[in-house]
């Protein structure tokens, strides 16, 4: 595309040459190789807030107050200063007025979000770019011994009140809210909700319902449907009327409101559980043509595990497009915990319009992994409106990310290959006994079956993906820069920091360092041993980044640095 690396000649070249079809965004992004955040202001004096995130269009910077009651929104600006004197251009030092937090951010407003007994969930934020609406969540404290109420499953914690707030970020005006009582929604890192265009899906773990809400342009949150015990809007009416006729629901009290949830006294399962079980049944049924074989197959694969299938609970949900949901099922003790990597997980693709399950993938299914490997972008489910969200590097749209994935996969299989050949050597030794043979066959079984499965499971444990969890900053574009993924990446989580600066090396000119992010002066002496965590926030479009150094994950940051292009 560009022949030289000089930014002025690149601009001239841009005037006379059009990029190859379909590559206009990539071609524009190459200018980020020239404009890098190479200058750092260390230890900036900033207000004591919990800084959270830039919105994906870079218009707002969202923070919460330390006591998690208020919302504070800043507008990112660029610093401007004037200096007096003869030799201003060659000044190495910035004037002190320029080194303040307020030079880069203008406070727009402070609004109270949570009432007295509630706290803001400081890991939850969704941004609707088309209307500049922000979605926040507050919740009360967890109720210690939650009674099992009608329809609620046991084993899941309960919160007295969880509220989802819809705010207009331009002026901080609260537009609407949706309240969940005595419920549990997993709000950390946007896990329990997913925003696609104007549709918001919220998973109520306790009542096992997926609430689909629509955000109207007027700012109202409208209930579209609730998938769980009922699939269609009129299912409840139909089931109630037919059961009254059949008379087998006499033991249930008709409250006259809603939530006439099925319990174990009912003669049948309804809603999404019924759809799921019938899909599994039909899939197993259609595998065999012989009648007796079929029945044997069913007994082994379906009826033997029937109660396990019935006990599956909805854990997480994401949109694949406007009509399709990817639902993760698992066991109830996983519900509130975070470490779900090694536990069995089942995935189903559900069509909301036809209320049919389209596909069901059992634990660590290779088929789902292949789809994830080839079409990772489509799992991110970005709406058509936000163009740049489609250019976040993933292993489906970037050859370097794909190479990394392949090398990880090869490592997982090659370790098993090496050990298989090693164990074969051992078994061929003249003095092997039956016990050694048994040990080796178990070992080989483990290597052939379990180890590659563990890799697939690890990759699939990130599904369904968290909404808006990756930063769209072009500095994370793998085709522009190479950087150490363990130290910094597009998903903004606190990581253990190192004393060495994080290097961003250009891809196109190998081994040429473009810029470094250094999180602090070289630590030595007294600080040497203590572990520190660092956390980065990159502006989506500008060469501006913030880094936070925390002594531990639960304490506020001890230092804030600003990295920008001077």
């Amino acid at each position, binding site marked *: 595309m560009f022949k030289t690396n000089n930014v002025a000649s690149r601009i001239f070249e841009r005037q006379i040459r059009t990029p190859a079809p379909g590559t206009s965004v990539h071609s524009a992004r190459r200018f980020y190789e020239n404009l890098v955040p190479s200058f750092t202001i260390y230890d900036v004096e900033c207000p004591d807030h919990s800084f959270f995130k830039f919105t994906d269009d870079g218009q707002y910077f969202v923070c919460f107050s330390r006591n998690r009651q208020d919302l504070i929104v800043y507008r990112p600006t660029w610093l401007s200063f004037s200096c007096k004197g003869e030799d201003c251009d060659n000044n190495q030092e910035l004037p002190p007025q320029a080194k303040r937090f307020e030079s880069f951010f203008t406070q727009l407003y402070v609004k109270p979000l949570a009432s007295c007994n509630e706290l803001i969930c400081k890991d939850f934020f969704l941004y609707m770019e088309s209307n500049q609406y922000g979605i926040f969540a507050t919740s009360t404290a967890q109720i210690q011994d939650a009674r099992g109420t009608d329809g609620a499953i046991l084993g899941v914690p309960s919160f007295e009140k969880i509220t989802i707030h819809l705010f207009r970020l331009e002026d901080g005006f609260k537009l609407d809210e949706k309240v969940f009582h005595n419920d549990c929604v997993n709000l950390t890192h946007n896990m329990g909700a997913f925003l696609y265009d104007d549709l918001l899906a919220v998973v109520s773990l306790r009542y096992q319902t997926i609430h689909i809400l629509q955000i109207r342009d007027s700012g109202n949150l409208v209930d579209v449907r609730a998938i769980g015990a009922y699939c269609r809007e009129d299912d409840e009416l139909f089931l109630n009327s037919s059961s009254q006729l059949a008379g087998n629901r006499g033991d249930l009290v008709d409250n006259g409101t809603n939530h006439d949830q099925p319990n174990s006294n009912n003669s049948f399962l309804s809603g999404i559980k019924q759809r799921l079980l019938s899909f599994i049944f*039909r899939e197993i049924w*259609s595998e*065999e*043509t012989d009648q007796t074989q079929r029945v044997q197959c069913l007994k082994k694969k379906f009826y033997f595990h029937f109660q396990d299938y019935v006990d599956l609970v909805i854990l997480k949900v994401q949109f*694949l497009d406007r009509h399709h949901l990817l639902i993760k099922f698992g066991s109830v003790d996983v519900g509130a915990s975070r470490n779900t990597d090694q536990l069995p997980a089942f995935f189903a693709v559900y069509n909301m319009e036809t209320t049919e399950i389209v596909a069901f993938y059992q634990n660590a299914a290779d*088929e789902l992994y292949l*789809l994830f490997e080839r*079409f990772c972008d*489509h799992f991110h489910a970005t709406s058509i409106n936000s163009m740049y969200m489609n250019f976040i590097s993933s292993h489906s749209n970037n050859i370097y990310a794909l190479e990394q994935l392949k090398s990880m996969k090869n490592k997982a299989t090659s370790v098993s290959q090496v050990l298989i050949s090693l164990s074969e050597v051992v078994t061929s030794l003249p003095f092997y006994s039956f016990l050694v043979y048994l040990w080796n066959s178990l070992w080989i079984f483990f290597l052939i079956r379990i180890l590659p499965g563990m890799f697939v499971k690890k990759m699939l444990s990130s599904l369904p993906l968290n909404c808006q969890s990756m930063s769209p900053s072009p500095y994370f574009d793998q085709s522009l820069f190479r950087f150490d993924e363990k130290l910094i990446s597009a998903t903004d989580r606190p990581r253990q920091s190192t004393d060495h600066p994080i290097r961003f090396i250009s891809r196109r000119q190998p081994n040429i360092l473009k810029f470094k992010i250094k999180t602090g002066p070289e630590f030595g002496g007294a600080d040497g041993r203590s572990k520190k965590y660092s956390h980065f926030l990159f502006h989506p479009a500008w060469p501006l980044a913030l880094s936070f150094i925390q002594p531990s994950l639960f304490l506020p940051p001890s230092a804030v640095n600003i990295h920008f292009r001077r």
Partner: protein
Amino acid sequence: MGSMLGNLPSFDPHNFSQLRPSDPSNPSKMVPSTYRPTHSRTLPPPDQVIATEAKNILIRNIYQRAEEKLRSKRAATEHLIPEHGCKQTRPSTS
């Protein structure tokens, strides 16, 4: 050279010296060749509308695989619905 472009500087003035720009008094004898189809087998139907597929490639793939599984066991699925039409699962007969 009497060129339409005037006396602009050029690398070699003898380039394009053979070229005579077309003028109305001396029409060129070259006629651009035209190609006409000899049959109408490949004409699109008159009411054809080309539109973008609404489902994205991932969803299309998922549906395709589901259909493939069903198609390969088509004989089995014909016996799926029992004769009475009720949807109760049959107890095992063995």
